[in-house]
């Protein structure tokens, strides 16, 4: 009962956030001076009538407030308009195609970053030597400021070009290998019982997910390390010890306390992850919405850019909802 109410309240709270971002994007892309059509076509030598016709076709001749609400209404119905560049191309369809790729990459990246981050952080917290502690801490700060394309390209150079171990980009060696069901190829391969395809998909995933995961793991390392140290010194642990509870068990309890800040951080982290995904996808030619966005940026396809940005807002909102729920499940002090 309580939890359902809590989830409902949290879910409702996403709406204004997305609205604010939509408004912001709308203002940025529509209200700021400059004619988007001209920018998209990239030339000013176009007959006045043809321009007007184009504007009309894209709905840009209507008053701004009308555009604002119409777009919103259509968006809610799942219609994100049409591409300005490729006439008649539905943006919603494009995004539906690309989104699973991004989700698959993100999920694996988070798994990587948690493994690396918590693993190293744990090592740093348990280490007795100050040198090791400092090294771990520093690794955390430095990993986080590595430029993703630089790391990605270096890994490609080593693992694909020189060692020839892993494919250089894309999601599969051949598109015909799978009939996408969920669009998450590793899962689709399992559903369709194609172990070789699964391995192929995994090989393609490995470098991009590792690249993104490694960079994102930086803050986790420090977070885990600081919190384990802090919790282990706390009175709660002292009391457990005084009661004769085994160290292994104490450590397990301590870990639950560390999980709280990690969960909270994962929520904040997600927006970084999304930004990183854009760069990772571009570096590895990963056909997700990040690559899609960069493509559209190159062509100044405003309607598509607007749709992608709002989709990102919705994704971030949904993740923060999931994190809130997880948080409430871990920490009984959260009242719902």
């Amino acid at each position, binding site marked *: 009962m309580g939890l359902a109410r809590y989830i409902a309240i949290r879910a409702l709270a996403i709406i204004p956030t997305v609205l604010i971002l939509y408004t912001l*994007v709308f203002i940025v892309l529509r209200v700021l001076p400059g004619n988007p059509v001209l920018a998209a076509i990239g030339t000013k030598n176009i007959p006045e009538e043809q321009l007007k016709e184009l504007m009309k076709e894209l709905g840009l001749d209507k008053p701004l407030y009308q555009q604002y609400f119409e777009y919103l209404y259509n968006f809610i119905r799942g219609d994100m308009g049409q591409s300005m560049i490729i006439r008649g191309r539905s943006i919603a369809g494009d995004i539906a195609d690309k989104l699973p790729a991004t989700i698959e990459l993100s999920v694996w990246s988070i798994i990587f970053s948690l493994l690396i981050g918590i693993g190293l952080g744990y090592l740093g917290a348990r280490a007795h030597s100050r040198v090791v502690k400092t090294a771990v801490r520093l690794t955390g700060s430095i990993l986080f*400021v590595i430029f993703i394309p630089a790391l990605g390209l270096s890994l490609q150079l080593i693992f694909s070009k020189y060692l020839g171990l892993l494919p250089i980009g894309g999601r599969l060696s051949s598109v015909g290998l799978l009939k996408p069901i969920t669009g998450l190829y590793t899962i689709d391969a399992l559903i369709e019982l194609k172990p070789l395809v699964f391995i192929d998909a995994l090989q393609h995933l490995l470098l991009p997910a590792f690249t993104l995961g490694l960079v994102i793991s930086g803050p986790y390392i420090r977070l885990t390390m600081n919190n384990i140290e802090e919790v282990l010194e706390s009175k709660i642990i002292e009391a457990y010890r005084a009661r004769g509870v085994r160290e292994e068990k104490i450590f397990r309890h301590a870990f639950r306390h560390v999980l709280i800040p990690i969960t909270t951080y994962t929520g904040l982290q997600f927006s970084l992850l999304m930004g990183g995904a854009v760069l990772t996808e571009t570096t590895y030619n990963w056909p997700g919405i990040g690559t899609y966005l960069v493509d559209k940026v190159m062509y100044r396809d405003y309607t598509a850019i607007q749709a992608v940005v709002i989709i990102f*807002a919705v994704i971030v909102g949904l993740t923060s909802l999931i994190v809130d729920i997880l948080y409430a499940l871990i920490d009984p002090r959260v009242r719902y």
Partner: protein
Amino acid sequence: MLELFKSNVAGKASRALLNASRIILGNKYILAGFIIVLVFVLMAILADFIAPYSPIEIVGPVLQPPSQKYLMGTDNLGRDVFSRTIYGSRVVLLTTAIAIALSGAIGTLLGLISGYIGGALDRVFSFIMDSIYAFPSLILAIALSVALGPSPINAAIAIAVVYIPTYFRMVRGQVLSIKNEPYIEIARALGIPSTRIVTRHILPHVGRTLMVVFSMNSADAILTEAALSFIGLTVQPPQPDWGFDLYKGRGFILTGYWWMMVFPGFCITLLAVGFALISEGVSTVISGGKR
């Protein structure tokens, strides 16, 4: 009188300088980071003297590997990668500096106002800022850059907008927590006017936190700038620019012309690491060396 004023100002300035140098020399992270950043800054200022060739002219055969003549080789058009890398530092540093100054100033001001006044104004400000903050900064920066049109100054504005909430939240949070400190209550009880409370009792604390945020944010802003370049949203070719050069180098990986991408990529990361080290040191100093 004027003499006195001058000596006072000079004294204050020299004391500030002395303080700064003591902080820089006193912490090895800050020192290391400072040296890295300094090298790049000098590189940008003295590019005309260091670079052996023009960054935009074709100076030799295409795709030459690094040699004595071309320290970092030549690119696919026959331009000197070393010279381009040196000149490339200008765009990054200038754009980031403008962006940080803008977002720092606006974010701090809004945070102070919102935190101290409180009430409905604070709630509205915070909500907008939190919404922007939660949003992927790079994607928002891309949208803004696209709207404003690709140029370094527009990229700076885009990055600035994206990071305003970072400063806003930090400053506001600090103001709120200090507002509840007993010493602020006592200051009120002593009849100290609220303008003085804000400027003399709250602002100095905010200043210390700002230092941490500034250094953390610098590394972030550099990476965002590089990302915008990477996507082609800052300079126009043939201007040298690390991010965009890296993007171009991407196409030559399978053919093994690694030098086109390795050097600009390395520079971006190293510069960001420099700021990260400074931030590491500053937070150690501020937390009293506990971490």
